[in-house]
């Protein structure tokens, strides 16, 4: 195979190898390597699955008790629906991209970015596939543990559950994962200006926590929170948690459109700010 004349200029966010198939193969390799790496640390896998199972059991006990205590539903949501919704939130956290923030933030702070940004691949795509490989195994193992656990403890899925809702939920989960990747990458980029973007992460992460329904499902929150969840990027990563809501079968396509909107907006912002990062970065060598 002849040696290709790769474009070795410092890569902007979305300027991968000239050979597209080669780029896809390279990213898939990164994904596979990260996946294999996560297999080498079974104790970490066990710990993370234990934590998610523990949290969900805690929520199950709390919500079962609270609903029994008040003896009624809240905004049409019963204990089973609330618990399933919260469980989906905690499961999705594993597939999503919170950890990519730390990687990029740390590389910006330590200066390790300079050794990666001049490689013939897109830095951001590399981080995307690397993180996906790290998280996907945890997600599926947690899924395999939590779903049977919930079915055993609660007896069934919520009443509104159907296969079409499940399909829509999967579409929203995939869309939400891409939104979360864009969101957490975007908030890591200011680290070049403010030394450490950790505070931005805390604020964004907690906005996702509230609007995603980690402790209190979105359907149980006042209407203002629904508006805020839809019209800011913080609700979109966790739209899939709404798959057990009574009106989900009529509203899911609207949520998909909102996710697409946020992917385009956040993607554009990433390109803009990454270009600024590239210009500002001082490579000292050494």
């Amino acid at each position: 195979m002849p040696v290709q004349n790769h474009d070795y200029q410092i890569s902007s966010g979305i300027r991968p190898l000239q050979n597209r198939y080669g780029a896809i193969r390279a990213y898939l390799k990164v994904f596979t390597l990260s996946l294999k790496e996560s297999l080498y640390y079974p104790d970490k896998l066990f710990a993370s699955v234990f934590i998610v199972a523990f949290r969900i059991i805690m929520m199950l006990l709390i919500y079962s008790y609270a609903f029994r205590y008040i003896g009624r539903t809240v905004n049409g949501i019963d204990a089973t629906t609330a618990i399933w919704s919260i469980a989906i939130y905690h499961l999705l956290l594993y597939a999503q991209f919170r950890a990519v923030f730390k990687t990029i933030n740390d590389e910006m702070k330590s200066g390790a970015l300079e050794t990666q940004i001049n490689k013939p691949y897109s830095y951001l795509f590399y981080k995307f596939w690397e993180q996906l490989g790290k998280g996907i195994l945890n997600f599926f193992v947690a899924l395999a543990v939590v779903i049977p656990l919930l079915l055993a403890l609660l007896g069934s899925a919520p009443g509104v559950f159907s296969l079409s809702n499940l399909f829509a939920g999967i579409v929203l989960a995939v869309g939400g994962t891409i939104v979360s990747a864009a969101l957490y990458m975007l908030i890591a980029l200011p680290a070049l200006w403010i030394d450490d973007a950790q505070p931005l992460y805390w604020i964004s992460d907690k906005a996702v926590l509230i609007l995603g329904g980690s402790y209190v499902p979105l359907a149980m929150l006042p209407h203002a929170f629904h508006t805020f969840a839809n019209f800011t990027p913080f609700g979109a990563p966790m739209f899939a948690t709404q798959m057990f809501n009574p009106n989900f079968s009529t509203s899911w396509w609207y949520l998909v459109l909102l996710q697409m909107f946020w992917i385009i907006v956040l993607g554009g912002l990433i390109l803009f700010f990454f270009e600024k990062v590239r210009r500002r970065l001082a490579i000292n060598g050494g």
Partner: protein
Amino acid sequence: MKFNKKQFYIWCRTVVTEVRIGLIYIQKNISSAAELRVSFAMQIIGMMMNNIAFVMVWWLFFKAFGTINGWNIAEAIALQGFVALSFGIVFSFFSGVDEFPKVIHSGALDSVLLTPRVLYARIFTLTTRVSALGDIFFGATLLGIYWILFHHTLSQMIMLGLLVIPASVIMMNFLLVVSCIGFYIPDAVEISKFMFETMFGPSLYPAGLFQGFMRFFFIFVLPTLAIGGIPVEAVRDWNIIKIVAVWLIAVVWAVIGVWMLHRGVKRYESGSLTGVHI
């Protein structure tokens, strides 16, 4: 046992010296972190804003469910403030224990063992976490709001403030105990972290939701309620038994912490890691 005046004097002098040196370490750690001023200020403010989310979560919860077993938004505010204050104190000034499993695993404990200080005290003051100062400010502010809005007496607030001491002691020693797993299992950073999270996470949940076996488990097996829910209930109801119980639990965990540390150190094998540790 005969009271030995000289030994007691030496013991007192050692305690005073350790406290003085501990304060110097803490001051050094904070000064070092404050070098990057923008980052330092943003971390503190960011952490305060981060914590507001938890108050909001429980406000929304109680808005949906109303009062549960005497717990409402007032108690939730006190709980968040109390836990944030205790957590802030532990992780601002004594966060070395959080790094302890990493220190054991990397072999860096050698340099700590060689310092002419009491090991127990030195481990706690190894590092400082700047963002935890935000927890202190946030906790104090929230407890002030709790006092003003819900008309508690000054003596109740002083008692709540005093209970921060045993709550912090419990948290520090629990963290030390789970960190000591590093002496038995290689690279126990993740395991000790998840054990601490298992204990600490539910401490932010209103204690009124823990009844029966769960209440017993989260007081006597994991000290979760002792670092938040029980102190808040004790001060709200002026329940002396609960106040004494929190102090006793702190003493028990301190004893377990010291015992685990001394057992663990006997198993430690030097990594022969050379370097300077200031």
